[in-house]
């Protein structure tokens, strides 16, 4: 079994078999991060470039740690310190990076489709670390790994995704991935944050949080992304929190052993109450731990080999 593409661009393109391969491989990589010596020689001599045109703590650090634990050399470029500020186009930046012979380029960009464009342009493997409101496949994979570890399966589970669905690449990738793996996905959020035609992806749509949370095995809260809203979508954060904050009250109706997830960074008291985020059902930090293993698995599966 191998991945069919040189790139990881979105969950939409991955088959069930490929997702299972990635999750199985990631499961085996978990152990490396628990050793005293957290490093294996697997990708010695390989170079991974992290090209981030948007701020990131978790994803960028996670990719960098994943590369380093595999003995690859990781180079980080962020937009504020790159020639993008001098007006260089993304295509020119990519061609120049390609000329330095890296093996894998990880890219985050505010434009949906930027990783797809680069994938067609350069010979290196491209991993999408989040493009606009489109996809964030490594987040969905680490979420699925977390669910599988805690619940033993994905198929047959009821997953509620709540918040700004329209702007969320995390939601989109998870909807593609989870429905493919046989989970039933429910989304809830204000009408203005619900993309038209979302039902066509196979999800159930609710506008009241309570209905989405009812009998849920997994509750995935989304961050309100103020940076992606050019107009005010709701009167105030306080009003949003009134209707869509996950707290003890709104959690009622979910299964007793429901898991609480969040891709981070969390806005405490807006989409999730602090006592829930820090509570016993929260697996938010497990998600972060699993992120390193998932990214190690992808780097391992993509790197090397003559075609």
């Amino acid at each position, binding site marked *: 079994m191998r991945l069919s593409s040189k790139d990881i661009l979105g969950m939409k393109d991955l088959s069930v078999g490929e997702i299972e391969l990635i999750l199985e491989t990631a499961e*085996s990589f978990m152990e490396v991060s628990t050793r005293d010596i957290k490093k294996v020689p697997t990708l010695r001599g390989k170079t991974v470039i992290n090209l981030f045109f948007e701020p990131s703590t978790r994803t960028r650090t996670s990719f960098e740690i994943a590369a380093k634990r595999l003995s690859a050399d990781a180079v980080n470029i962020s937009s504020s310190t790159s020639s993008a500020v001098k007006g260089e186009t993304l295509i020119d930046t990519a061609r120049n990076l390609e000329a330095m012979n890296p093996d894998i380029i990880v890219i985050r960009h505010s434009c949906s489709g930027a990783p797809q464009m680069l994938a067609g342009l350069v010979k290196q493997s491209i991993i999408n670390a989040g493009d606009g409101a489109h996809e964030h496949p490594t987040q969905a994979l680490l979420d699925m790994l977390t669910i599988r570890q805690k619940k033993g399966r994905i198929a047959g589970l009821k997953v509620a995704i709540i918040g700004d669905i329209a702007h969320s690449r995390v939601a989109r990738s998870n909807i593609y991935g989870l429905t493919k793996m046989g989970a039933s996905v429910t989304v809830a959020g204000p009408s203005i944050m619900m993309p038209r035609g979302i039902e066509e992806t196979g999800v159930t749509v609710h506008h009241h949080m309570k209905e989405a949370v009812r009998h849920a095995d997994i509750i995935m809260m989304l961050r309100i992304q103020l940076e992606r809203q050019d107009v005010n979508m709701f009167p105030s954060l306080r009003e949003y929190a009134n209707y869509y904050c996950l707290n003890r009250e709104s959690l009622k109706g979910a299964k007793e052993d429901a898991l609480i997830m969040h891709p981070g960074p969390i806005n405490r008291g807006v989409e999730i109450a602090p006592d829930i985020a820090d509570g016993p059902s929260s697996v938010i930090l497990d998600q972060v731990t699993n992120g390193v293993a998932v990214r190690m698995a992808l780097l391992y599966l993509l790197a090397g080999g003559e075609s």
Partner: protein
Amino acid sequence: MIKGKVVMDADGIDRALTRIAYEILEKNRGVENIVLVGIRTGGVFLARRLADKISAIEKQDIPMGIVDITLYRDDLLKKKKKPLLGKTDIPFSLDDRKVILVDDVLFTVRTVRAAMDALIDFGRPKVIQLAVLVDRGHRELPIRADFVGKNLPSSLWEAVSVNLTENKGKDEVVIEEET
């Protein structure tokens, strides 16, 4: 394809493992500080059997670990298709331990080289010894086994397989010509 020839049957395998268990105890003067580490996958079953035999002889449990050598292979990045990564499970430090590395077939010994690199990432063992059920020759590195179930000189176009009840439903060592 020529039908495989059985060169070791279930009794033969069991007797060889019993002898190796005694040899391990003799060479190390008992079980103190001994741990067994099986190389995934064939070596794991054999390590478990050896651990049972040694425990039965000495009336004492022997720690056992599993090492997957995939991440340490020297040919990994030469192939597009990656081997499925298995879990390494060594839930104890190897500092100052006497590690008995266990594998089914000794051939090019490149697997053993990789396994030793992996072990050293888990501490500094006092000694690493190697136990194999079958040594078929054709070493490509200067590494040899300390405990051997059976020496089986073979030619390069022959395939030697160790079938075990745990994965193949039957204990036997088979040699056959590859087509």
